[in-house]
């Protein structure tokens, strides 16, 4: 089968006042549909940059990036935006909800952008799935961090994306809340059969994915399969 995500010799460098800064070099990686992959590494190792490239939020300096069979490198920003709307969902460390819209409206947004008439109903259902059925009309600043992240997860699945990118989704949450958010993420992921790319600096969280890719200074140093079953129990202890 063809890979859902495929990076070929991907590199990224930026011009800074101190000259060229190489953030990523020669990254090759292939992720199959419905696979769950964790990208780990210390802060500053290039995880977010890689995620941005894979999701088509940014363009690479070299190499090819294929998403859902389409080559991002040959697409312009407009085409990439459309591809994102079709196939990609996001969960971010800082939630990234629109502060002036209610929880319900935030989840409705991606559904509406697909001209779906049932946006309100579908969004309400998803919020019920994440346990926020009583908070539909609340604004983000009226919700706790965990609740905001649950709204963000509901929004991510609202567009019925094939691929979900999560950048340190528990980074701004305490351990217990983080664990519940992760449980939710994984159970929805299993339910929708989504491909999941999870960026984290937390090795234990990474253990819950079937595969772990380690980045050190912009290079992949490790790419291993993980026995998920063996680690499920661990989460309870986190």
């Amino acid at each position: 089968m063809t890979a859902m995500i495929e990076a070929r010799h991907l590199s990224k460098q930026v011009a800074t006042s101190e000259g060229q800064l190489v953030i990523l070099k020669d990254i090759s990686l292939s992720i199959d549909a419905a696979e769950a992959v964790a990208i780990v590494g210390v802060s500053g190792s290039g995880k977010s940059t890689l995620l941005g490239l894979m999701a088509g939020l940014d363009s690479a300096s070299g190499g090819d990036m294929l998403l859902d069979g389409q080559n991002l490198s040959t697409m312009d920003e407009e085409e990439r935006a459309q591809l994102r709307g079709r196939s990609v969902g996001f969960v971010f460390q800082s939630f990234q909800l629109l502060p002036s819209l209610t929880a319900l409206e935030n989840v409705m947004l991606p559904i509406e952008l697909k001209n779906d008439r049932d946006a309100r109903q579908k969004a309400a259902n998803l919020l019920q799935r994440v346990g926020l059925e009583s908070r539909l009309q609340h604004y983000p600043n009226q919700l706790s961090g965990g609740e905001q992240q649950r709204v963000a997860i509901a929004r991510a699945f609202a567009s019925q994306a094939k691929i979900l990118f999560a950048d340190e989704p528990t980074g701004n949450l305490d351990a217990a809340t983080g664990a519940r958010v992760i449980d939710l993420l994984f159970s929805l992921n299993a339910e929708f059969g989504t491909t999941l790319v999870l960026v984290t600096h937390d090795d234990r969280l990474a253990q819950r994915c079937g595969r772990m890719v380690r980045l050190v200074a912009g290079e992949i140093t490790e790419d291993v399969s993980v026995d998920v079953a063996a680690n499920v129990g661990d989460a309870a202890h986190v």
Partner: protein
Amino acid sequence: MSESAQTVSASATTLMRVALRLLWRDWRGGELRLLLLAMVMAVTSVSGIALFTDRLERALVQESATMLAADRVLSGRQQPPREWLQEAAQRGLATAEVQAFASMVFSDQGNLLVAAKAVSEAYPLRGELRVSDQPFGAAYTDNDGPARGEVWVESRVLPGLGIDVGDTLYVGDGEFVVSRVLVQEPDRQQGGMMDNAGPRVLMHLDDVPVTNIIQPGSRVSYRYLFAGELAALDVYADWVREQSDGDFRLRDVRDESQEVSEALARGESFLLLGSLFAVLLAGIAIALTARRYSERHFDYAAIMKTLGCTSNQISAIYFGILLSLLIIAVVVGSLLGWLVHEGILILLQTVIPIALPAASLTPFWLGALTAFICLFAFAMPPLLALKHTSPLRVLRKDLVDAPLSTALPYVFGIAGALVLIVWYSQDLLISVILVGAVAGVALLLSAMSYLLLRTGSAAGMRAGSAWMLAMSAVRRRRRQSVLQVLVFSLTIMSLLILALLRTDLINDWQAQLPEDTPNHFMMNISDSQVAGMQTFLQENEVDANPFYPMVSAGLLTVNGAPAPHPWDDDDDEQGRSTMTERSGDNDRDADADRQDTEAGGADATDRPQRVENRQVTWTAQLPPDNEVVAGSWWAEQSIPGRVSVERDYAERIDVNLGDELVFRVNEQEVTAIVDNMRTVRWDNMQPNFFFIFSPGTLDHLGATYLSTLLLEGQEKLLLNDLLRQFPTIVVLEVDALIEQIQSIIAQVSSAIELIAGLVLIAGALVLLSCVNATLDERFRENAILRTLGAGRKLIMTSLLIEFAFIGLLAGVIATVGAELSLYYLQSEVFQQEFALHYWVWIAGPLAGTVIIAGLGFAATRKVVNSSPLAVLRQLSA
């Protein structure tokens, strides 16, 4: 794939729905409210002012047309050819004919000198004839005019002749029945002496031959009246000029009353300038709030992009938001504009006695169009920059997009401002001056703020830490600080310009025609009558004014050379004529008698020199409202043979101090040396003279005297006694004219107050949005400072210093800019004398410091009062 592509792209209605939702939800945040407020403000001030001026102008045009009883008038001492009337009728113009002459009328009981006026049936073409059935009775309108064999007379005629309505009155050989009492005629003040020499007797034009009064050589004022379409009038005016080789000219109301047309022109300029400032300030407020709104929406745009929104869709969404704002602003602003102008009309009911014509729709279009231009020039660029937001922002918060720092918004803003300026001023001069002033201020600003930022920081080393903190904040935000100083100084400058102009204009007008302005001229008083008249006035408890001797003098030579004609270089301009000359002459086209004389008989082929006769006087005292600007006024023991010349007139005939002038006065030649130059207030409706001689120069040359009186209401009946006792004098009644001018000036003044108020609101909006613009950053900075241990008091002091410093800088620049602009505006546009406003040099900077410091402090107080942790958490979220 293709199927999914179709479902993905959001439709226009979807985007509009998202836009409306964002608009609705963002309403809770302050920026949108400010943005909308600024736009509403722009629409309100433009439509309100335009409505007001539109209706006022129509009313004034109507009212002033009634001052002529026509749209255009053709007049002369000789009767213009009758065919010209037929020609005008063929061109679709309405025509009427008037002949005015002074005449004695008789009754069985007595006689009276009256201003007789014979009119054709069509008279009046504009305005109304108001009549009543008994003296001082209730008035009603009757535009038919007197029938043949009848006359209408002013109330004063009846007691003067000892008769009543229905009795008989004789004009020359004609016998007439007095059928109505004439209360008001539109063109009462027209026609000079013929029309103002006494109370009015109005008769039918066809009755004139019966009277046998008009003989060859009689002084009669012939007037043809025309009314009709502007274009047709203009074409006909050209035709008349060609036919008469320039001897006859069609005049309109602006030729008639310099006082009114000057007040109107200045008032209009002020209103235009005011609405321009209001709109520009609203535009700045729009730009600032839109910018802040869009800065807040970078994250929105980035998030929506991750959700699959394309750049174009982002643009569509924000375009939708702007469009909705535009519609709301236009609707609300137009409504408010209507209310504002209705409010002014109610306030002005007492000074606008005339019924105003309905407003046209144009003002609403102007308002909407202005909002549209403001929106696209000032709000659109920052909002459309949102589409360039990188979606990567969601991953890297520190990623600072720089779309707003591009020149595009400024280019749009300046272009928009230029369009508005040219459009509103409709006058390239004002535009150029304004642009120049703005550019000057900007230049001055960059130089000064650079300097001050340097010295400020140097001084900070020695002063306390609050000062240092403030100065480092100013320097850190140098770009923002400079922008703030620019915006503040432009705002304060606009307010200063308007406030000073307003005060100067209104003071000027009040000085021009004070409440107690004399409203009657007494002329043709002989030497021997002066003492008797003074006694008469004293007995009747009427204040007497100076009696000026008056004689007609023609300037022959200057230092031996023939005197140049003062108005030769522009034939169209009539030049100034004094009140005395205007009233004393029935044909104002020639502002003084022109005599042709053989000067320098040696060259017989030469065109004879045209000598202008001027009414001149002599006096030991400098008349009020006159000011000596060169040389000095003669002392009590003055030497005969000196003359004082009005400055502008002296310039035109190229006369300097010490020159020797030869005049011809009553067939005698008189020589006088120019002793001094004066300025004169031409618009004060008082006796003014181009030449004033020293006593003893002209005394033997048979002058008559001139004086003025203030008579109001019933006091006018005194004129009957006065004229009976001194039958040879001539009284010119200008009370109606003065009242008319005073009422027009009062209207214009009120309008000026209003616009100044509106601009003040617009200015406050700008200040508020400008202070708000830096709020987020201040929140963050101060939270950090406080976590680092800076006390509340220190931060508060430093904030105060920072704003006060910016305010001071802005105040100084604004004052300089305002005075510079005023210098040009007053001397070039408003025809006023410019004088530095000393108090402003203190008040301007002080006001800047206090207002900006106060506003800034009030707005940022919550920065200091919120807990640093809350601030940091809120900002990081």
